[in-house]
């Protein structure tokens, strides 16, 4: 009996501290993974998977608690808000946590079989260490309510993200990683300077307290608060890879191992977009943008990003490079939703975070599956490959359809909301941007999917190793199946995710 009570006590402590444990579970497992002997191939991956399952349980608990009792404030170390660090779990955080952990768990399952083929065996422990640190700090970024804490977590995420690119070795990866590191540090330096300015103006680091002090600060120190806003914008735009500052993304995402590309494109850049949204709407309220039209600038950059990203993607011959450029276009949609400053548009933009995380990871993973089995990276060699790899190419086809926004896929829902948002906000120009980009997406995605199944294999470009096409392991097939089914499921029943998003949007635009 007493042991039962003890178990119950431990469980209640576990759930009571869920907001911080969601980060710590991954960080602690990362430390343990680093201690593992470098011989085994499956042990580090097993650790990572176990940590992800624990984090999923905690996320489920947080989702239940937030939906039933409203937002959770967690004071770290028991020191209340202006003195200590505070974690704030809102519907938006829960939405991001669900996105991060569901996609990341599938990526870990996939990488169990794919990674030993891509990187050296003795580096697997290091890879999963960095991966867990990265995902843990991403989760922390979604729940933290303290600007300086955000800076620290962003640096963990930056080093982790660059680490899982550099792990592959070779000149391209190293160079891409260094470029990413330098630009992302430039971004964080800007964000830290902006944090210093806001701290000077309000005397607080907690976002809620800064928001309370900003009302007077904007009036008393207009230049300072606007410079801080500009620095935040530049910093987050670098990190989220919006158009003029996207230069690091194509190299980084195309040269990395496939699971790293999936997590970087699917999750990392989205988190910074959400942080930027929080800064914009909580610290600087939408009222400020009536005087200083930052959101107009975001809209223009987002539109250029959408169009230019799609055009560059069309010109690529390497499949992963094409997917990387397509990410620039897709992050443009998220920023378009933020820039519209309108409930429906923002719903579409936020929903696109979840949808794009699913479809882009699926596309990167299916491209990775093709590379794993046949070693083909070039788009023109992929003709007729659907007959050899029906599953991977079916998943690719579903992803391609979702990217274009064909009805009954999840991409359609978010694009529909964005399109309705542009009309309701009275900006039909941006509807044109959305339609044009859907057309462009169709031009470069669908021929690959159609060619893979109905194209004539070209014997001239037939690589020698094509005959011995490896079988796709179950652990790589399973995530593809789940993601493909998910893309269709959330295309037909989008209600579940919309509940979380509409709650968020209702707090931003009351």
């Amino acid at each position, binding site marked *: 009996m007493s042991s039962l009570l003890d178990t119950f006590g431990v469980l209640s402590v576990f759930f009571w501290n869920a907001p*911080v444990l969601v980060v710590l579970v991954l*960080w602690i497992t*990362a*430390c343990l993974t*680093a201690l593992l002997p470098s011989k085994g191939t499956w042990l580090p991956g097993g650790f990572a998977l176990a940590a992800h399952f624990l984090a999923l349980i905690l996320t489920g608990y947080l989702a239940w608690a937030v939906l039933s009792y409203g937002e959770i404030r967690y004071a*770290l*170390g028991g*020191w209340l808000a*202006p*003195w*200590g*660090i505070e974690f704030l779990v809102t519907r938006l955080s829960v939405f991001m946590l669900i996105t991060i952990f569901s996609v990341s768990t599938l990526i870990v399952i996939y990488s169990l079989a794919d990674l030993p083929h891509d*990187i*050296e065996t*003795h*580096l697997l422990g*290091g*890879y999963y*260490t*960095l991966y867990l*640190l990265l995902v843990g*700090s991403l989760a*922390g970024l979604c729940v933290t309510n303290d600007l*300086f*804490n955000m800076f*620290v*977590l962003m*640096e*963990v995420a930056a*080093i*982790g993200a*660059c*680490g899982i690119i*550099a*792990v*592959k*070795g*070779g000149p391209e990866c*190293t160079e891409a*990683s260094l470029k990413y590191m330098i630009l992302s540090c430039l971004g964080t330096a800007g964000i830290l300077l902006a944090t210093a*300015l806001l*701290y*000077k*103006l*309000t*005397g*607080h680091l907690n976002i809620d307290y800064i928001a309370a*002090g900003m009302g007077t*600060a904007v009036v008393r*120190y*207009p*230049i*300072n608060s606007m*410079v801080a806003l500009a620095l935040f914008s530049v910093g987050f735009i670098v990190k989220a890879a919006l158009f003029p500052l996207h230069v690091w993304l194509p190299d980084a995402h195309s040269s990395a191992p496939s699971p790293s590309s999936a997590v970087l494109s699917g999750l990392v850049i989205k988190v910074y977009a959400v942080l930027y949204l929080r800064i914009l709407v909580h610290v600087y309220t939408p009222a400020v943008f009536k005087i200083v039209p930052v959101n107009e600038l975001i809209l223009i950059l987002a539109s250029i990003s959408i169009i230019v990203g799609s055009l560059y993607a069309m010109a690529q011959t390497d499949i992963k490079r094409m997917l990387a450029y397509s990410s620039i276009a897709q992050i443009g949609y998220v920023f378009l939703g933020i820039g519209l400053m309108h409930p429906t548009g923002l719903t579409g933009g936020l929903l696109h975070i979840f949808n794009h995380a699913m479809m882009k990871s699926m596309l990167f993973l299916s491209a990775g599956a093709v590379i794993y089995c046949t070693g083909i990276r070039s788009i023109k060699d992929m003709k007729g490959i659907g007959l050899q790899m029906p599953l991977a190419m079916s998943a690719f086809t579903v992803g391609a359809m979702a990217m274009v926004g064909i009805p009954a896929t999840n991409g359609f829902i978010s694009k529909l909301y964005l399109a309705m948002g542009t009309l309701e906000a009275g900006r039909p120009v941006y509807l044109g941007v959305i339609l044009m980009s859907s057309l462009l997406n169709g031009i470069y995605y669908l021929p690959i999917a159609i060619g893979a199944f109905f194209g004539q294999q070209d014997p001239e470009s037939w690589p020698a190793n094509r005959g011995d096409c490896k079988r796709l392991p179950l652990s790589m097939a399973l995530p593809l199946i789940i993601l493909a089914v998910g893309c269709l499921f959330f295309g037909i029943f989008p209600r579940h995710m919309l509940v979380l998003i509409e709650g968020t949007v209702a707090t931003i635009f009351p």
Partner: protein
Amino acid sequence: MRRILTFAFLAVIGFVLVLTVAEMPTYGDPSNPVHNEVAARYLEQGTTETGAPNTISAIITDYRAFDTLGEATVLFTAIAAVVVCLKSR
């Protein structure tokens, strides 16, 4: 040409930042927003609440200990990344 553009860009940034500095609350003024109830509590009750006469240690090891954990994690991440990077091909 590129050099001129770079200098023009830097001049604009420098000018804006100088204007920002000129507008800031005066250096060392006790009525600045920074010197508010947060700092006051650290100084007045820090010793009794944490047992450390050095308020800075009280903050980094108790009030904002999670930042310090994050700092240790950044160091750990950097070490792991350096090791992985140098050991790879």
